[in-house]
């Protein structure tokens, strides 16, 4: 579904990604793990067009998307739920969600989609009128995810959804992610919570210092020594 080939990305003169390759199959949960600063968010930003790679290619459903601006990439069906929630803090929950459906492809159906999102996160319906800024961390994360789903994505990219959440919410968030896959949405997930992630994902890549260090099916990776030592502390 998504194919990333030999991507190199720079911040100014500093190279953040080196020849990164990544393949995601339709309908799976792919995970991306790696230490802080490994370049995970950079890779996601490169995919969603926030930054452009200096070389390499990205294809989505057979179409080249590297070099397209973010808004065109959203139109194609990729939704990026950024690190740190990034809500429109002075807009209501409902308006935030509606913004998720901004792309012209789905704007007309936003009412229907909204109902679906409310089903997934019932608490958001109760809070529809509240300003995003005043929500608790967990609720904000739900708004962020709901907003990402409003564009009816084929591929949903989620960056560290459990960061800073209370343990109870972390469990809930992972449950929601699983249920998304059941609805047929392909997912690319970044998490520091490696065990939990590998448990729900099908396929994972390990990014170290901007390079892919390891990749494979999650069951195998869970057995790998490197993973167990570096990321699970066993």
């Amino acid at each position, binding site marked *: 579904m998504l194919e990333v080939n030999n991507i190199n990305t720079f911040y100014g003169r500093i190279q953040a990604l080196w020849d990164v390759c990544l393949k995601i199959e339709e309908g799976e949960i792919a995970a991306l793990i790696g*230490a*802080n*600063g490994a370049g995970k968010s950079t890779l996601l930003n490169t995919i969603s067009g926030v930054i452009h790679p200096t070389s390499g290619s990205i294809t989505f459903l057979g179409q080249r998307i590297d070099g397209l601006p973010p808004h065109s990439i959203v139109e194609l069906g990729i939704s990026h739920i950024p690190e740190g929630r990034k809500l429109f803090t002075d807009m209501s929950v409902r308006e935030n969600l509606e913004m998720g459906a901004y792309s012209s492809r789905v704007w007309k159906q936003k009412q229907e989609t909204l109902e679906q999102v409310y089903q997934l996160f019932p608490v958001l319906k109760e809070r529809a009128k509240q300003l995003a800024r*005043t*929500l*608790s*961390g*967990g*609720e904000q994360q739900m708004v962020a995810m709901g907003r990402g789903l409003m564009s009816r994505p084929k591929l949903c990219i989620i960056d*560290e959804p459990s*960061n*800073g*959440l*209370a*343990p*109870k*919410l*972390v*469990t*809930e968030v992972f449950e929601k992610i699983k249920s998304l896959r059941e609805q047929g949405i392909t997912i690319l997930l970044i998490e*520091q*919570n*490696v*065990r*939990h992630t590998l448990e729900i994902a099908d396929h994972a890549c390990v990014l170290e210092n901007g390079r892919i260090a390891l990749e494979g099916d999650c069951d195998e990776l869970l057995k790998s020594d490197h993973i167990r030592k*570096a*990321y*699970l*502390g066993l």
Partner: protein
Amino acid sequence: MHILEGEGVTKYFGGLAAVSNVDFYVEQGEVVGLIGPNGAGKTTLFNLISAALVPKPGIIKYKGKNITRKKPHQICRIGIARTFQTVKIFANMPVLQNVLAGSFFGTSPGMSSTDATREALESLEFVGLSDLAATPAGDLTLANQKRLEVARALATRPELLLLDELMAGLNHTEIAESMELVKRIRDRGVTVVMIEHVMKAIMNVCDRIIVLHHGQKIAEGTPQEIATSKTVIEVYLGEQTNAGS
């Protein structure tokens, strides 16, 4: 002896009681964990202690003295240092200068520049950032930025250190290192209060845990007591408690 004490500490934001009538104390030399669901008021409580916010009503005492009316820099100078949930480093300054600012202005503001530099280097050494002393702080990884905040706080020579989610966003290895760091800080004789959602760390490091919910203190006790408390499980930990691992 109670190094820190709060009586009826309360803070409203508009109609919302972010912290509501909380009594608490911290014993000299212990590590206290502060946990609770998102939005429970933990960070707000830190802000009240460090005088970023003023409690209304309520009193906070440090070593028996009322410090409610002091300014943030005065709080620091009497020996309370803190870190921030979202890192607030001086991104365009080199690492060493970040820490130097701490040692220059902390509890002993009259320090000579050689002493201050020595102090700063020592703090960097302590958190393991000596090699990066000349790097602009903004170029550090998140884990290192968090360490830098700790070093900067330590350079002020505090007796009480408030750590706000030191481990959020860190991976397993880094969490383990951070736990080690907290223990070493305690061993230096610094009292620590830490906010954390990473249960493993809380359970391992803390002597005592305070739980907030909707701005109120709902539980307090040893890690074992908290881990098994029904209320805490219900509002915070959830059924599976492996979340932080």
